[in-house]
């Protein structure tokens, strides 16, 4: 039986186990939306902006480990996806975006709502396709999902002209998805793994530095077993928070610009770094020439381009983190004698004890306190999604995560506006979880329209806005490095006399038919959090926090990671 291109697309999505799509229709995807109308297996979430759809698909993917799917129309619909695709690419998130395109005979014609979507999205996708024949749809979707979730995961876009959505052909249920130019190395070279392990065991001061690869390969258990077996300290990048228990005695916090004193000390004093699924991002290394001066580096990553990119690896292992760690654990179990890292571990944990993360716990309502209370009251069991800025760093610092896929944040691209749609996507993936969007007043406004999506579909998230009336992270840099010249960061009233701010987030919440709250005093925080947790629908919480609070510690941009400014 012949099916239309649109019906085949839905067959392909069903085949891949997709039960949720986020998107907005438009002229060039009406045939596809028409097919969705009758579909019982795939639930469509109509978002209020295509960027919201992309971030929801991304949040859904991060929370569930499955591939997120979003749909947009041609032209502006597709260009609105770009930030969401770039966000997913930099954080290696599996996603498939389907865009409508103007009819084939109009492509290249400057037609209404035409954009060169594959051209525009080429640098922000792992791969993209322009479908030119309805008979190719099944194979292209099979390849797209395979590419999105395998190797180093990432977003893939498929651009489908409207006439191809309507054209008919036989559906090929089992197309060949193999791609001759794409064979990610999963296992890793056994000899290289053995060499790497021997080098690790020969070290005296080993630091385990794990990144997002731990989350995407599902290697938390293996990482924990490995670290405990060796009794060596573990530092996690922003992307892997929760990939090793945040309350474990071996965990020394995140490294880098807003990392802990202990983690940065460990980098600068260790003699061996075991980097696994991390990529030595500039926010981690600081000034590269002064980074980890005494360390040899064993680097495990599935993406060869991540190895020896910023920092040269002494022993590279190209492979999947989980698979490589498993092989190392087998080799370890045959070892009779383990190195003794206890003195080194003590050295590091002493720094952690002497210079812990802290904030001023006085009568003022401080943003860190709010996060701390969320952590205590939810007993660390919530899923936290963040926007981008100071609140993001505080969320990482003061909410501790013991499980993977519980801390969801735009790390690589640093996309303001990610949090709210990300949280909605995450909640759809994990409806049983309490999802808290730790937000700033600046970021939240970048996709605040998605409150309507939360309302309409009855998706409950807690939007906890730490409102300081500033674009706080930039203000902090201006305070510390630009002589307090606050240029373009004040979100409240420009007049020093009236202390007004806009919008009134409590009213915004209410305007969307949701619960709105404003919290101005420290003593009201607990009751407000409990009320929000008890609510059945989305709550917008406006915490009026200290305006000029800074994220500490901070390593100035371009400085070595031991040049730390901390709370005085």
């Amino acid at each position, binding site marked *: 039986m012949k099916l239309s291109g649109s019906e085949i697309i839905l067959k392909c999505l069903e085949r891949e186990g997709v039960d949720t799509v986020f998107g907005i229709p438009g002229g060039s995807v009406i045939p596809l939306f028409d097919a969705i109308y009758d579909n019982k297996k795939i639930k469509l979430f109509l978002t209020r902006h295509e960027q919201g759809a992309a971030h929801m698909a991304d949040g859904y993917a991060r929370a569930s480990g499955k591939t997120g799917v979003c749909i947009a129309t041609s032209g502006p619909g597709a260009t609105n996806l770009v930030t969401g695709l770039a966000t997913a690419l930099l954080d290696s998130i599996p996603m498939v975006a389907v865009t409508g395109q103007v009819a084939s005979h109009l492509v290249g014609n400057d037609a209404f709502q035409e954009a060169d979507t*594959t051209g525009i999205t*080429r640098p922000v996708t792992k791969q993209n396709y322009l479908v030119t024949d309805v008979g190719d749809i099944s194979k292209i979707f099979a390849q797209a999902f395979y*590419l999105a979730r395998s190797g180093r995961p990432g977003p893939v876009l498929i651009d489908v002209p409207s006439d191809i959505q309507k054209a008919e052909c036989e559906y090929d249920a089992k197309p060949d998805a193999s791609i001759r*130019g794409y064979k990610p190395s999963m296992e890793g070279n056994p000899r290289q793994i053995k060499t790497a392990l021997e080098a690790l065991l020969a070290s005296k001061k080993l630091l385990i530095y794990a990144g997002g690869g731990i989350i995407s390969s599902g290697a938390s258990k293996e990482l924990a077993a490995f670290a405990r077996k060796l009794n060596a300290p573990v530092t996690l990048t922003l992307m892997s928070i929760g990939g090793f228990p945040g309350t474990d005695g071996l965990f020394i916090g995140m490294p880098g610009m807003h990392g802990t004193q202990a983690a940065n000390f460990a980098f600068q004093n260790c003699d061996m770094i075991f980097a696994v699924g991390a990529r030595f991002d500039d926010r981690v290394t600081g000034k590269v020439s002064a980074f980890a001066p005494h360390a040899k580096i064993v680097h495990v990553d599935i993406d060869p381009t991540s190895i*020896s990119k910023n920092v040269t690896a002494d022993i590279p292992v190209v492979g999947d983190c989980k698979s490589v760690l498993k092989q190392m654990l087998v080799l370890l179990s045959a070892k009779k004698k383990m190195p003794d890292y206890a003195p080194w571990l003590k050295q590091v944990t002493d720094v952690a004890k002497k210079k812990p993360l802290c904030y001023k716990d006085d009568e003022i309502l401080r943003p860190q306190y709010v996060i701390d209370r969320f952590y205590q009251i939810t007993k660390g069991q919530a899923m936290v999604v963040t926007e981008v800025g100071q609140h993001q760093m505080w969320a990482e610092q003061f909410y501790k995560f013991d499980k993977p896929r519980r801390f969801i944040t735009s790390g690589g691209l640093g996309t303001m506006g990610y949090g709210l749609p990300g949280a909605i996507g995450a909640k759809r993936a994990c409806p049983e979880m309490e999802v808290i969007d730790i937000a700033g007043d600046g970021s939240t406004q970048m996709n605040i329209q998605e409150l309507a999506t939360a309302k309409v579909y009855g998706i409950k998230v807690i939007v906890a806005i730490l409102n300081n009336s500033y674009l706080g992270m930039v203000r902090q840099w201006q305070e510390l490095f630009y002589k307090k010249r606050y240029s373009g960061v004040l979100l409240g009233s420009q007049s020093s006399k009236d202390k007004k701010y806009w919008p009134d987030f409590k009213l915004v919440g209410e305007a969307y038919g949701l619960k709105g709250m404003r919290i101005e005093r420290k003593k009201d925080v607990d009751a407000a959090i409990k009320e929000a947790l008890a609510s059945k629908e989305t709550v917008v919480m406006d915490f009026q926090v200290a305006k000029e609070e800074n994220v500490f510690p901070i390593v100035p941009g371009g400085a070595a990671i031991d040049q730390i400014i901390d709370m005085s």
Partner: protein
Amino acid sequence: MKHTIAAMVENKPGVLAKISGLFSARAFNIMSLTVGETEVHDVSRMTIVVKGDDKILEQVVKHLNKLPDVIKVIDFKNEEFIERDLMLVKVNASKASRSEIIEIASIFRANILDVSADTITLELTGRETKLEGVIRLLRPYGIKEMVRAGVVAMSRGRK
């Protein structure tokens, strides 16, 4: 340092853009890039000459390999290989200088493709150094127009 790399790629629209985008996004400088068909109908072969140190070369090769549309990459760094460039060059040639130019052409085994009252157009194939040598010799006569096809390369022997 100049490096020559060959990449076997899917012969379909958009692939050239993906490869050139890879270079521009990372500010790698391409000195020459050629694309053409191969013995396999759906595979094209690109020959890319890049400038940079070994570290840049290593990243270029890795990034090329990472693209799903790239089937195979050959790095000629540690190989014996043959490379050729093709050039057309139109030179001013008066009655007086014409025979000198024809003599240069015959020494370098260039073909004379066109002769007019005041120009000669030569076709020359060879390694870059040879082409550059001829350009130096022809420059005093006045080069009116010149075009080079870019380098193509292949390993020696059975490989």
